[in-house]
């Protein structure tokens, strides 16, 4: 029941997110309306950060305790995390074409996100490749921890290297460098994506528990 409620909350928040992104936030002066992709791109990457933080937590928890609940959390967190990373890459590429003049460039931010995506895709593949559940959980926990180390690299890459990608406008020291209306619309969408993510995780954890009960 709680999962169902969370789902409806996510739907309401997503409707509010779309309304603020297209109805409340003003047209950006330099980029025009194509900048509205930001209300999808930035919440997607922040949700991916959250996802891989949870994978890290679940993986460490599993290696320390060997309780299957931690492993289920890590797997349930990773799946939508890969999806949100994919959306980040695709929306960034679509945004990049009209603004940068290219779909893709091998700059530090884009490359580190691509590596993150491939590592967690590998995480999901590895899980499917090993039949022994305990061994799969152990190997995946190690990979989940190693791959999470790429998250700070992704975030700080724009400071450490010269990149085409702009530095962060939020999640940085000091105040956000954007007009209040744009920031408000962005925050509504961040909340909506976070709710949707937790809905997916809760649903997936419930499914994984039911699957293991059915197999037992």
């Amino acid at each position, binding site marked *: 029941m709680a999962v169902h409620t969370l789902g409806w909350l996510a739907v309401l928040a997503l409707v509010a997110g779309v309304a603020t992104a297209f109805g409340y936030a003003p*047209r950006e002066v330099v980029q*025009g309306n*194509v900048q509205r992709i930001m209300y999808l791109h930035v919440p*997607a990457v922040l949700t991916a950060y959250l996802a891989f933080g949870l994978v890290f937590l679940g993986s460490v928890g599993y290696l320390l305790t060997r309780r299957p609940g931690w492993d289920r959390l890590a797997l349930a967190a990773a799946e939508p995390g890969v999806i949100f990373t*994919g959306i980040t890459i*695709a929306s960034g590429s679509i*945004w990049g074409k009209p603004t940068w003049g290219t779909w893709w460039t091998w700059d530090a931010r884009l490359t580190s996100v691509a590596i993150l995506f491939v590592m967690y895709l590998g995480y999901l593949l590895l899980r499917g490749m090993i039949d022994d559940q305990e061994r799969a959980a152990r190997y995946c926990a190690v990979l989940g921890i190693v791959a999470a180390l790429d998250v700070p690299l992704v975030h700080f890459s724009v400071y450490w290297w010269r990149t085409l990608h702009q530095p962060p406008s939020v999640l940085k020291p000091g105040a956000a460098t954007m007009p209040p209306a744009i920031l408000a619309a962005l925050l509504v969408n961040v909340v909506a994506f976070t709710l*949707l993510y937790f809905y997916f995780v809760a649903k997936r954890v419930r*499914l994984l528990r*039911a699957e293991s009960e059915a197999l037992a």
Partner: protein
Amino acid sequence: MADHWNFVAAAYGLAVVVLGGYWRRLVRKERELAALRRRA
């Protein structure tokens, strides 16, 4: 700069398809498990 609404539609459309697809996959799995439980 031109508005490039087609790029905006492509980005949001893709997100809807991918997220909707994942949600449908979870719902389908849930139904399959429920059916399996009923049979057991």
